[in-house]
């Protein structure tokens, strides 16, 4: 965000957005809980849950954390982190499950 110098009007506009985001987050929470009661097949349930969670997370990051208008140095740090995070999160698929004795 344009930290430092914002007029009061601008801030006011922001605060209205915050409440809109809040309602969307509430709605999405309802959606994801609702879906869980349907007991979908596991794969679909995972995909849906992750899609909803990612949407919620994006809203928080973009608007509450002001990532929608952040500086390059922050984007750079986060892009780097995101790249390595991907490697971290695929570790489970690096384990040779074929040889596991259950």
């Amino acid at each position, binding site marked *: 965000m344009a930290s430092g110098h914002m007029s009061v009007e601008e801030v006011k506009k922001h605060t209205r957005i915050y409440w809109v985001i809040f309602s969307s987050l509430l709605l999405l929470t309802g959606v994801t809980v609702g879906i869980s009661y349907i007991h979908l097949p596991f794969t679909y349930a995972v995909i849906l849950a992750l899609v909803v969670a990612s949407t919620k997370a994006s809203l928080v990051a973009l608007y509450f954390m002001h990532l929608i208008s952040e500086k390059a*140095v922050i984007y750079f740090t986060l892009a*780097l*982190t995101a790249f*390595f995070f991907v*490697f*971290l999160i695929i*570790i489970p698929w*690096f*384990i*040779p499950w074929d*040889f*596991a*004795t*259950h």
Partner: protein
Amino acid sequence: MTHAEHTHSGHHEMPFWRKYIFSIDHKVIGLQYGITATFFLLFGFFLMILMRWQLAYPGVEIPFIGKALTETGALTPDLYNALGAMHGTIMIFLGVVPMAVGAFGNYLVPLQVGAQDMAFPKLNMMSYWVYFVGGVVMMSSFLMPGGAAASGWTSYPPLSVTANNAQTVWLLAMVFLITSSLLGSINTIVTAVQLRAKGLSFMRWPVHVWAQVATAFLLLLAFPPLEGAAVLQLVDRVFGSSFFLPSGLYIDGAKASVAGGGNPLLWQHLFWFLAHPEVYVLILPAVGVISEIISTNSRKPIYGYKTMVYSILFLGFMSFVVWAHHMFMTGMGVTLSSFFQATTMIISIPSVIILTTLLLTLWGASIRFTVPMLFALAFLPMFAIGGLTGLPLGLTASDIHLHDTYYVIGHFHYVVAPGTLFALMGGVYFWYPKITGRQMNQFLGKLHFWLSFVAINFVFMPMFLMGSKGVSRRLYDQTGYSHGAATQSWNVIMSTAAFVLLLAQIPFLYNMFTSWKWGKKVENDNPWEATTLEWAASSPPPHENFPTPVEVYREPYSYSPTSRKVRPQFSQQEA
């Protein structure tokens, strides 16, 4: 500009404990790191001397101190394993990293970017004290009944989970050390990026600053997974969960009473996700230090500064995606191993480029054989050996034979001991006049260098021969194996050389302590005629480093083409 007087009065007002113990001055904290790390390096070295005695003369009583350690005076296998684990842990996490990142990074980065201090001075103090507590906790594990952690510095479960309570202490200490590194790395990055002097654009950073920033990013992003893994192992040990324990374990003559369902390989992945970048945490600051020393002492710019910078960044980046080459022998299939072999081969390229760049800097130079330069020059072939011997370990087929043998030990010790440690020792000689205003004794320095250089090669070179024969690492006594017995003579030679190496550090330590008071005073603030900003500060620098703000006028490593004069970054004149 009344800053100067202001500070001086400020200095004297500060009580001793504020100035030297709980100091927030990056220079004092850097020295605190340096002194503590030196202690740990010597201690870790001493542990290895005990182990080397056992390896050379298995089961023979250790002279003088043996009886104080064990009943028979010889090491027991238990104690040997504990010393091995603690040697690795202390050297890496309590010695080399705090020295390279804590001491050199802390002392030099603010000076080299022209800042008055780190961006977060109190955080800086905290990171030192968290490290200190981590060190104390780690050392306290020696007092545990049953001795210190004995599952290797890698702490592979299930061995580590079922080991005695010292392992819990080890994990706790690791959590402290990791936290300290995280705080430090945040500070380094923010300082280097935000507090740059006027005119110091990124591409004017000294190579050492680039190296420290790359290192800080590695620590920042690679350490947390190990912290997570350490927490999981702690919970396994303390609360009896089974994150790393599979079902159907049969330990100590009984079925293990755990829920099971975990996986030992999970630890290995999370561990190496840190521990491979960690290798570059050890080497990158050394490359930075070496670049400064070589450029200054060959009186010419680094060959291809940009290439150097990009190589360092690329090296840091790639170091995150090679970790599983430590795990080729854990059932890895063809696809995955090909990927990790390929990345491993790719990561060798920037290493070669860095080495080539430094070697080419020497072409057309005017080489001054000062003590720091001797260490820097020795670093080049030593780092080459360490790097090259990584190739057979990075290819699965050759790794089948060499994995977990002495070959591996030789490989990484060449990188870290005559590599990083030589670089850091050179760095001590190089920046000593800045820190104290006095030079270290050149004769003692040369004695230290030549003895260390010869001895260290006799310690590590035979490891390649033993490893090629297939001698496994971490053996309390290798003579039970036929190939171990056949190569046992090498152990006698290596152990003797290790002892000589220990003796060779005496002139260094003596030199370091006595020169503080009695060393030759430097005539000006830039005795080596170097180009970077730290030489603009007085020696030793005052609390605020630069009473009047410095300005940067040019790239680092600029020398006059016609005279033997230097063109420092902070000087406007075209000498």
